[in-house]
């Protein structure tokens, strides 16, 4: 869902992470006023750095796989850049033209998975489900940030646009599965350790059950994920068929 929301936030306004391009892409005939030259420079730098960061993670995964000879427990080899670049995405909230609500929701859910689940519950770090969402996020983000970079420079290769609006079909469900399986794997350890939970009696007459909270989060995927997914499908039809009419951009 963190994966889904990312693409959706982006598709909604062609913003959602890298700032909005000028008339450069075929989101329709509407021309959005582009950001000023200083803001554009900042956004380009931001998007290039983020693209590079996720490429580092991708390369890290491949190298670790080749070195180990297996795809298990690859998380440890990219843990630091993953935390750094995914948390860094918090900077997107506010500089993005598209809905602040959608962007912050997306970033918060990613950050939640990285820190409040994977980092906090050490026992799940060796789970294969972690690799599932890390791969989904890595591919999605590399494409997404390069999409923004090229859009800002008014030079968007059709391939990137196609990839952005097509690969999600597989990457979304993949990412969501990885996320859900990881949260599910964390549950017994959370229960056992009473992680992030507080029980009565206490001075402030308050209680919080992190285990129940995680279950609620998992349930929330049911209404939220289909909405995001079908929104992307709808966007895909709109944007890719529109480009067909206008021929390839180059």
């Amino acid at each position, binding site marked *: 869902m963190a994966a889904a929301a990312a693409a959706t936030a982006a598709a909604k306004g062609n913003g959602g992470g890298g700032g909005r391009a000028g008339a450069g892409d075929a989101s329709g005939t509407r021309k959005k006023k582009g950001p000023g030259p200083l803001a554009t420079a900042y956004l380009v730098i931001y998007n290039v750095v983020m693209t590079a960061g996720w490429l580092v993670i991708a390369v890290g995964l491949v190298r670790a796989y080749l070195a180990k000879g297996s795809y298990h427990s690859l998380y440890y080899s990219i843990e630091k850049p993953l935390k750094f670049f995914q948390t860094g995405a918090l900077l997107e909230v506010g500089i993005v033209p598209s809905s602040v609500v959608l962007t912050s929701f997306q970033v918060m859910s990613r950050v939640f998975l990285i820190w409040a689940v994977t980092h906090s519950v050490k026992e799940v770090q060796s789970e294969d489900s972690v690799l599932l969402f890390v791969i989904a996020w890595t591919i999605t983000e590399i494409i997404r940030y390069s999409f923004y970079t090229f859009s800002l420079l008014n030079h968007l290769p059709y391939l990137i646009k196609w990839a952005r609006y097509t690969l999600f079909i597989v990457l979304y469900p993949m990412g969501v599965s990885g996320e859900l399986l990881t949260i599910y794997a964390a549950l017994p350890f959370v229960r056992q350790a009473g992680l992030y939970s507080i029980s*009565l*009696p*206490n*001075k*402030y*007459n*308050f*209680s919080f059950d992190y285990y129940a909270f995680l279950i609620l989060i998992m349930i929330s995927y049911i209404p939220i994920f289909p909405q995001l997914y079908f929104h992307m499908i709808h966007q895909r039809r709109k944007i890719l068929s529109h480009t067909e009419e206008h021929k390839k951009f180059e």
Partner: protein
Amino acid sequence: MSLLIPEKISLSSASSSPGRCPFPTAEYPEVEILDAKTREKLCFLDKVEPHATIAEIKNLFTKTHPQWYPARQSLRLDPKGKSLKDEDVLQKLPVGTTATLYFRDLGAQISWVTVFLTEYAGPLFIYLLFYFRVPFIYGHKYDFTSSRHTVVHLACICHSFHYVKRLLETLFVHRFSHGTMPLRNIFKNCTYYWGFAAWMAYYINHPLYTPPTYGAQQVKLALAIFVICQLGNFSIHMALRDLRPAGSKTRKIPYPTKNPFTWLFLLVSCPNYTYEVGSWIGFAIMTQCLPVALFSLVGFTQMTIWAKGKHRSYLKEFRDYPPLRMPIIPFLL
């Protein structure tokens, strides 16, 4: 009723009520109503009284489209413009002899009174379920038991009093400028009020409830804050009511009266919200319950948004609005 644009009756035809109207027929404005989104002609009204108000036009429109009762009609001069007010007079609007109005459906509406009564009755009832420890909330051995802490009984009295006061004010005090709001609001609002009431009540009435750290001193102080703010809030509601005659929608600048509680008007535009926040802070201190503090915080955030909006419209409407006043917190916010 099928949509048929009524034949435009020729204004010069002798058959159109000769001798009845004092004005030559050519002077009667006509009104056409178009759908704001599709521009489809929905209705044509001829020979509308020049002094007709938008409210009357809405009533005429309902006759041809009974499913769109006046409360759910938004009529405007521009499809993307602001809604016209019910009191606006047709003649005074910048229209020619044929006025074109654009219609937008506001969706199903529900009266403010209904929403208020429902959203306030819930917490009153729900809190009592927890207070009496009705089965299936706490362990079975606690069913229908009573707390041994005085503050828990006091809290129930305060909470219940608060919502009874709100219900009575809704029925007898408040004068609403809008009759209705969108139907979906009742679900949103009730979820908020009922949800928080249940959450707070669960902890305050819990068998493992811990009374305030500073004991009776803390409770007495908090109770004083609560009572003062309840009286203050009520005083403001009465003062606002007296500003506006029954059935009218007049707006005037509120000023302090002889009642000392209303003197807060010197410093804030919406002292009713100030007192309301104060009441809940008092309740939070009294119960020393974090969920109550969170509820106060959320309420404060929402009331601040409303107060700022109200303050802004006061400033826009009245040139001589007292400059010292802040929206909700004296000197600060």
